[in-house]
């Protein structure tokens, strides 16, 4: 049986202006002008991405906080309304079911944004685990659209068409606002390493995309003065990789734990209990056997997923999970899992690229200099 391709509210616009690709069953833009130029627009100015293919799940009810703290590893009791956090949710073995951002909209109302690949899986897992909790789990993915406006000039772009004072919204904080007379929710989060916002258009069902189109066009128009580019999934991937952010199915999956993936900062062991806690505690006390690292190529070559990594003695010590050409560093970069003894920054390893051993160095995330790029940058815009 052939399953119909899924589309976002903006499909008509993308199909006329972008080179399209298939991702997680969706027909999505790969690039408009080209991956490198879109990538650099986000690092230097601002870019806009349609990320409506991701999921949107609303969790409401008097037990919403307790329920989320039971299914995810991070602690939502630390969130005040209009703030967000990054987390994973694990199975009983500590394997990662998904990673996402959770926002607290109200005292008893949360928004969870699954990866496109995991929309149905997450919803089903949440519903299954909600048993006994006073909560309602609702999938509103197809009723709302979502864009990411990212880059050092994202705030200026949005501020020019929005009356809410955006300078007051700190990183991982949110606010309701209006853009082009349409109700939106702004969250100062993203998947590029840069400052920026994710814009939720609440009333934009798939069958009636007018509001989504209106907000998209109005941001693009406002961004012209700041060098905005519409960006596809190609640049989204190179940007997140440079920033050292995981892609579900490549770098993390149900056979990977957050401790191996170096996501321990989202695992709050001090919480009374959460799904996977036992297995993760055990792994923590025994120590992990492998760890996610960054690789920067010393010699020419681009590491790609499933390429093998060897030490100087020719021993296979790991595997590449994501790799690309870094438009900023102008060399190959990768995320990889390497045996713990070898997972040391500064260590030189070999990546097997089409039968040839090519030298790479284990480096910290992000790959770029944080003084010059990313949301912590010190250079004035």
């Amino acid at each position, binding site marked *: 049986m052939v399953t119909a391709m899924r589309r976002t509210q903006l499909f008509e616009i993308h199909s006329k202006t972008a080179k399209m690709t298939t991702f997680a069953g969706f027909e999505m833009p*790969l*690039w408009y002008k*080209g991956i*490198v130029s879109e990538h650099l627009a986000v690092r230097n100015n601002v870019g806009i991405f349609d990320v409506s293919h991701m999921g949107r799940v609303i969790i409401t009810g008097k037990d919403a906080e307790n329920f989320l703290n039971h299914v995810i590893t991070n602690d939502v009791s630390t969130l005040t309304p209009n703030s967000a956090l990054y987390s994973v949710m694990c199975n009983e073995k500590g394997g990662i079911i998904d990673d996402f951002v959770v926002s607290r909209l109200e005292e008893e109302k949360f928004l969870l944004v699954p990866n496109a690949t995991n929309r149905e899986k997450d919803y089903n897992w949440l519903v299954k685990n909600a048993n006994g909790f006073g909560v309602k789990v609702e999938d509103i993915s197809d009723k709302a659209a979502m864009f990411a406006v990212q880059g050092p000039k994202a705030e200026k772009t949005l501020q020019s068409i929005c009356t809410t004072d955006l300078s007051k919204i700190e990183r991982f904080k949110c606010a309701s606002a209006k853009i082009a007379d349409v109700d939106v929710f702004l969250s100062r989060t993203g998947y590029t390493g840069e400052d920026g916002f994710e814009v939720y258009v609440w009333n934009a069902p798939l069958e009636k995309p007018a509001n989504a189109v209106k907000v998209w066009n109005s941001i693009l128009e406002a961004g012209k003065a700041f060098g905005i580019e519409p960006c596809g999934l190609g640049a989204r991937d190179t940007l997140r990789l440079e920033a050292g952010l995981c892609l579900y199915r490549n770098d993390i999956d149900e056979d990977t734990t957050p401790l191996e993936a170096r996501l321990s900062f989202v695992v709050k062991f001090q919480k009374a209990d959460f799904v996977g806690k036992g297995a993760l505690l055990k792994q923590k006390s025994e120590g992990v056997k492998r760890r996610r690292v960054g690789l920067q190529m010393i010699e020419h070559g681009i590491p790609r997923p499933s390429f093998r990594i060897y030490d100087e003695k020719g021993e296979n010590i790991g595997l590449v999970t994501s790799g690309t*050409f870094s438009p900023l560093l102008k060399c190959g970069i990768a995320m990889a899992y390497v045996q713990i003894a070898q997972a040391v920054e500064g260590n030189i390893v070999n990546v097997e690229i089409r039968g040839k051993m090519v030298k790479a160095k284990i480096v910290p995330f992000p790959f770029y200099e944080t003084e010059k790029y990313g949301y912590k940058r010190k250079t004035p815009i």
Partner: protein
Amino acid sequence: MVKVDGYEVPEGLYYSKDFEWLKIEGDKVRVGITDYAQKQLREIVYAELPSPGTTTKQNEPYGTVESVKAVSDLVAPVSGTIEEVNTEVQSKPELLNEDPYGKGWLLVIKPSNLQAELANLMDFNKAVEWHKSLIQEGK
């Protein structure tokens, strides 16, 4: 020079279905990738080429070009011995995007069986038709 829906197809060249062009220069041939190929690959960042003296075999890979997103084999349009390699595209792979039929040439080959092998390539007219069908499929 003819443009098929934005893709350049120069006259006087032979073309392979592996997206390479071939130009006869006396008893040698010059080869490279087509405009269609470079536009599909986009932003080429590496070109891996063999050294002079290496032999090529028609329809077999002799190197790779790599873009941000993917790596592609370079497949030889003829058999022979490589006489010259464009080292400039190795240091400046963007030449493949900017000028695929000119400064972005890849190899000069001394062919070993040119007349017979030309029959396996497309001439200009056939190449134009083939580009039209490629574009049709892509839509």
